[in-house]
């Protein structure tokens, strides 16, 4: 008898395990042509980084809800990173002073706030007063004045050419509302008044909320969708599941093997597009520590990295190797092709790397490991946050690559907070890190090799963690800030690229892809590689362009 009983138990267990395995491999799911079809014209978007929403439509708050800066409020201009061109938005046109010490914006004349009041230059002036007070920054801005209801004048206290894009990206808030708020920094603005296409908050609940049409929008012909619904998810898996199941229309979080898990279930409607215009991802070496202060060592290490392996194994082939300008594809128009064509230290060349290290005085011992000048073995660590599984495999590929040149690299992967703390204080050996990303390459190169962004070890750094400063590059960056002439800026950026190529302040790995996927089941008009009017990011300034271009499927 007991024997029989056990076999019953076992078969129950086996059956349930089998069912579970079947479900996981998706045997039961049959693709149908109408998954996720809705009729209400509401665009559904998941957010994977918050389990619940707390009402906060304050654009000056670092914790503002998604779509605050995209659907409720609008900026003066929107820069499309795919083309590098600025799209006029609330600002109809602008002129930059020849000396770079000021600029003038002419506003659209027909813009109304969602409560029906007209938007004027006074709103812009008060917005910048608030932004300076609450968020800080804009230190170059000495005075903002309303010349007439549609003209705003910005005066700088020094020539500062990147100012146009920083000012242009600031979203504008209504003076008649915000002047009555006693503490604007702590204002949650739960019933927002904005100029954006979707300003009316409805059905606000802890895990979802809807933004409905602004009845007074200034471009009514671009308000084709009926509204936006944001859904909260605690982590990628839940958001991906909702997306794969057709519950949402647009998703911009990372989805592993998207072709198989998403597109193949309905190839007629489901698409993804991962342009590599995000910031460059790099391997930074702490240049305050020997031997990383030696440019030959940095270049030799870089030559030993197999970037094809890094991008194919670590990044699932969604990106491609970076070149020796360090610039991402978002700066394609700035790249100097003669430098790109002559790149050597960002290409795999193990022989040359070995020779360079031999010549630089790091001989290989009997065990195959090189010795530092201090007599210690050439061994150090590469830091990366444990939650970034893709970057973690990038680090592992690099660590394996280093064996070929007799360098012992160990992967150190605690929590990101601990990694960043090491970066910030300058106590790390090396690590995988993002880069500054703005409209022009200025911020990027400033964070890579300006002496102005270097702080001593022990003091908290927020950029240039590798603590490298080049006097020539610093000088070039100062010149770039002081000119607003396109051709001069281009020449300066060419010279910056050549300095980057010569000094190798960091080891660029690959430009990061901008994730984005969508279904055409309910909406069409998405940006694509053929029509790159924006990226598919749902949390950047170009999102406004997507929201005002989508059309519902009848």
């Amino acid at each position: 008898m007991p024997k029989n009983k056990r076999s019953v138990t076992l078969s129950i267990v086996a059956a349930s395990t089998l069912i579970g395995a079947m479900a996981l491999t998706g045997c039961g799911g049959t693709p149908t042509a109408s998954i996720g079809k809705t009729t209400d014209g509401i665009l559904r978007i998941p957010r994977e980084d918050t389990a619940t929403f707390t009402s906060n439509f304050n654009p000056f708050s670092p914790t503002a809800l998604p779509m605050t800066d995209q659907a409720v409020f609008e900026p003066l201009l929107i820069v499309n990173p795919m083309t590098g061109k600025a799209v006029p938005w609330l600002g109809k046109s602008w002129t930059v002073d020849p000396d770079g010490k000021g600029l003038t914006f002419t506003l659209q004349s027909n813009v109304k706030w969602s409560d029906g009041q007209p938007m004027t230059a006074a709103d812009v002036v008060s917005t910048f007063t608030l932004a300076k007070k609450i968020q800080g920054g804009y230190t170059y801005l000495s005075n903002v004045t309303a010349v007439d209801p549609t003209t705003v004048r910005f005066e700088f206290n020094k020539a500062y050419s990147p100012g146009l894009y920083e000012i242009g990206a600031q979203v504008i808030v209504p003076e008649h509302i915000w002047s009555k708020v006693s503490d604007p920094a702590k204002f949650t603005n739960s019933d927002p008044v904005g100029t954006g296409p979707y300003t009316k908050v409805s059905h606000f609940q802890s895990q979802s909320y809807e933004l409905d049409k602004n009845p007074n929008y200034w471009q009514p012909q671009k308000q084709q969708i009926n509204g936006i619904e944001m859904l909260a998810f605690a982590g990628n898996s839940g958001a991906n599941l909702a997306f794969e199941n057709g519950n949402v229309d647009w998703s911009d979080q990372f989805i592993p093997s998207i072709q198989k898990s998403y597109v193949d279930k309905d190839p007629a409607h489901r698409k993804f597009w991962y342009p590599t215009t995000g910031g460059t991802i790099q391997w930074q070496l702490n240049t305050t520590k020997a031997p990383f202060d030696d440019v030959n060592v940095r270049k030799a290490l870089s030559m030993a990295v197999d970037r094809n392996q890094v991008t194919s194994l670590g990044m699932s082939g969604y990106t491609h190797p970076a070149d020796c300008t360090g610039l991402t594809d978002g700066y394609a128009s700035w790249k100097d092709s003669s430098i790109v064509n002559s790149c050597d230290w960002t290409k795999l060349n193990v022989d040359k790397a070995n020779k360079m290290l031999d010549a630089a005085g790091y001989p290989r011992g009997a065990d195959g490991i090189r010795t530092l000048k201090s007599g210690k073995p050439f061994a150090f660590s590469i830091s990366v946050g444990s939650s970034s599984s893709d970057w973690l495999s990038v680090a592992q590929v690099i660590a394996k690559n280093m064996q070929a040149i007799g360098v012992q690299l160990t992967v150190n992967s605690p929590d990101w907070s601990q990694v960043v703390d090491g970066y910030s204080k300058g106590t790390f050996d090396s690590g995988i890190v993002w880069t500054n990303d703005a409209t022009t390459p200025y911020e990027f190169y400033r964070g890579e090799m300006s002496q102005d962004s270097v702080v001593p070890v022990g003091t908290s750094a927020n950029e240039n963690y590798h603590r490298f400063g080049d006097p020539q590059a610093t000088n070039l960056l100062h010149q770039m800030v002081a000119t607003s002439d396109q051709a001069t800026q281009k020449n300066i950026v060419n010279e910056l690229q050549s300095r980057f190529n010569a000094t190798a302040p960091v080891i660029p790995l690959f430009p990061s892809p901008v994730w984005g996927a969508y279904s055409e089941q309910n909406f069409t008009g998405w940006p694509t590689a053929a029509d790159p009017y924006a990226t598919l990011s749902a949390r950047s300034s170009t999102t406004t362009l997507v929201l005002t271009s989508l059309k519902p499927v009848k």
Partner: protein
Amino acid sequence: MRFLLRRLGFYLIAFWACITLNFFLPRLMPGDPVSRMFAQVQNQMRPDQIAALRQLFGLTNKPLWQQYLDYIGNIFRGDMGISLSRFPTPVSSVISSEIGWTLLLGATSLIIAVVLGNLLGILAAWRRGKFLDSVFPPLLVFVGSFPYFWLAMAALYLFGIVLGWFPLNHAFTDGVEPSFSFSYVADVANHLVLPALTIVLVSIGGWMLGMRNTMIATTAEDYITMARAKGLRSGRIMFHYAARNAMLPSITSFGMSLGFVVGGALLTETVFAYPGIGYQLLNSVQGLDYPLTQGIFLTITTAVLAANFLVDIIYVRLDPRVRVS
């Protein structure tokens, strides 16, 4: 009474130790909330905004002991401060907006697991070696030893996607207005089934085994033989004589578990995108949101201590020996 007072004194000291740890532990972690936030959004924030943010969050350079005194004072005023990761929402409203769902999910699954588990344990021990006793304990322990994450995912795929019996995520249908109507309650219940079921599945085995083992020990006692000799009905002996005495360890664990319910069910919340305290706590720790972390730990501490005190009181009623000693 002396017993209860002594316990109360113990709980007060435990409470003080807990809130002190609450204060110092998050501050021992490397980094500060602003650079953490900066690192999380990577290149979306300009470095020159950091100083302003620090000021906005009220991160002062006051000496630690002074911050500690302020903190203790604020706790007794019931002021838990403003959450940094959900700025400018007060910690109390962040917690109160989540705690309802946590209690609903935690209490439902705990009560089902305890009642069902104990009942199965009692029956299994009473009918030792029979079908129930030989099939259920190994089966439930087997299921319970699955990684919870895997089990929850499998249940979600099977019942949510393949069969489509239950919704995939969230506590109720998106866009539905909460109300006290039947349709809303039914909607909430429908969304609760899978998350609660998976928790019950992994926890019930422990309850059943624990109950079964103490129950077996109890049935060997003389007073059970005596009751049988008196000719009492089997059901009466089982519940009133054996189970009542075998229940004491279960009550203790129930009290403990009841307190920990408040901490939320992190994995359940992640898999089923269910609202609750667990994910909030993880987020606040990762973002070094001191006020929110402290607030949640304070809530958990209070709940655990209160539940334990409650168990002490129940013990006095259930077990005469405690009253005597």
